[in-house]
């Protein structure tokens, strides 16, 4: 067995955590999908390094993160815009670069956006992946244990050590252009949209919503005109998912994110489309978003645009990498 790369977390920053693309199949036990809030940013970072899309990286939320490497490692930071430096040398976001053994990678931000993704060549090894980053065939019990007691999803602390998978054969830097952020978030009407008052329906689509600083990985909590049902009624608990926009009696909507609960009892006014969910991960507290009403076929088109983006990206990587 080859000696693994490892990195030491000198400074963990605030709410930094190890994230992959999460897992499904356990929602009937109340177990949420989890994973990176901005999935596209993590996939982009992994693609640039030749990692599998679902390889685990570090999700950064704010503060100063410093990581010391014990072996030469290619890395890339995507998502929010951070100041990246190795010693006196500044590094661009969205470009893969090599850090040498003994050097310290310093990340400060975000300058814009909210969450950045640091992917490392070979990915971060967790209990559910082997050296080559393939999924291990685990029994469900041990998979759950890894998810709940292991590296994945864990908030980083100063002094943590993370193991990396096998290095690949990268020889030169390449970069990519990220898709632009906008605060227009496309959504489908939710099953209970019709229960809301006419004014509330209009307000939902036509007014701005400010992201509050109570937002976290479970949900983006919004503040604006109080929404109300045309007629008060208690709902039965039903499945919810990342993207569900639920409205508690306070009238202030919550967009559920990757660590959301699996079921809930509040009316669902809308569902943010999968292609735009990342925008909520990149909106900062105090910033405003608007919801844009789309049809399921427009949602399909938006998903297809992401597929095209990654298709073109992969062609460019294959041609230049």
């Amino acid at each position, binding site marked *: 067995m080859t000696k693994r790369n490892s990195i030491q977390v000198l400074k963990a920053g605030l709410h930094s955590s190890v994230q992959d693309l999460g897992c*499904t*199949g*356990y*929602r*009937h*036990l*109340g*177990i*949420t999908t989890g994973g990176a809030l901005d999935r596209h940013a993590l996939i982009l970072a992994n693609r640039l390094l030749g990692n599998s899309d679902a390889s685990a990286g570090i999700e950064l939320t704010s503060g100063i993160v410093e990581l010391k490497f014990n072996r030469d490692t290619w890395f890339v930071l995507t998502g929010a815009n951070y100041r990246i430096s190795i010693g006196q040398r500044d590094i661009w976001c969205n470009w893969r670069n090599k850090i040498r053994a003994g050097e310290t990678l310093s990340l400060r931000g975000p300058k814009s956006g909210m969450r950045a993704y640091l992917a490392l060549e070979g990915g971060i090894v967790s209990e559910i992946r082997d050296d080559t980053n393939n999924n291990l065939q685990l029994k469900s*019990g041990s998979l*759950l*244990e890894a*998810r*709940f*007691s292991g590296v994945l999803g864990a908030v980083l602390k100063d002094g943590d050590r993370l193991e990396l998978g096998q290095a690949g054969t990268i020889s030169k830097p390449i970069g990519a252009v990220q898709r632009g952020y906008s605060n227009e978030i496309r959504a*489908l*009407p*939710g*099953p209970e*949209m*019709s229960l809301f008052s006419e004014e509330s329906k209009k307000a939902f689509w036509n007014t701005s919503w400010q992201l509050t600083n*109570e937002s976290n990985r*479970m949900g983006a909590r919004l503040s604006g005109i109080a929404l109300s049902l045309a007629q008060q009624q*208690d*709902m*039965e*608990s*039903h*499945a919810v*998912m990342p*993207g*569900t926009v639920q409205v*508690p*009696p*306070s009238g202030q909507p919550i967009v559920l994110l990757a660590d959301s*609960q*699996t*079921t*809930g*009892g*509040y009316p*669902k006014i809308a*569902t943010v*489309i*999968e292609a735009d969910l990342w925008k909520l991960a990149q909106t900062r507290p105090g910033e405003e978003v608007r919801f844009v009403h789309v*049809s*399921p076929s427009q*949602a*399909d088109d938006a*998903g297809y645009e992401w597929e095209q983006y990654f298709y073109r990206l992969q062609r460019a990587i294959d041609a230049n990498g």
Partner: protein
Amino acid sequence: MNAETSLSGHNKKLRMTTEQSPKVFRLGESAVVIDCTNDFPQASRLCIQRKIWWLADRCRQTDEFIDIVPGMSNLTLFVKSTNRINYWLAQLGTLWLQAKEMSLSGRNVEIPLVYGGEFGPDLEQVAKYHQLSCEEVIRRHSSGKYTVLFLGFQPGFPYLDGLDSSLFTPRLAVPRLSIPAGSVGIGGNQTGIYPASAPGGWQLIGRTNIPLFTPQSIGSPTLVEPGDTVQFIPVTSLEFKAK
């Protein structure tokens, strides 16, 4: 869209069942929901849920779903391929008519519970809301035998059937940002136990220290499963050990 498809009846008999027939609709891009709430109160919550268990079991056999998530009198199916959404939108109502009450062989699980005080900060408010004494709320809550209808919300959280209707209490207008693990609450017509610290909108009346979710467990990671029954045993302190 949230297009609701109900069974279109060509004869009178079918049209009569339409009123209480389930609502079947799409949720987001890749989920389909069947909501059978309208079968209540003609059928009991437990009877409806037994048919939900049957339906979930049927769907599990198809290998077409990423996740099959029962809720209260409803079932959400997360499809592997969105091409199959329309098929399931059309199919679920028909399947519901065939659904049988599935009985799961349940165990009885006793959960010791400290009511009120710092462990149940909303007990007094719940008592006040119903114009009962705290003792009477405790008596009514702990004399129930509750059936686990489904798990959801957070890992191992059981939704329980059997709450005395005189204890039905609306959820909090503003959910708490953090509720301690083991808290027992009432939300609307339901009572349940929070397995882990989490935000939530239920009225908290007590707390237990029995773990509801143990991911390292070799067997089931959850203390209870659908079909089990739960009883709350009032105790005065949290000095007890988990079984």
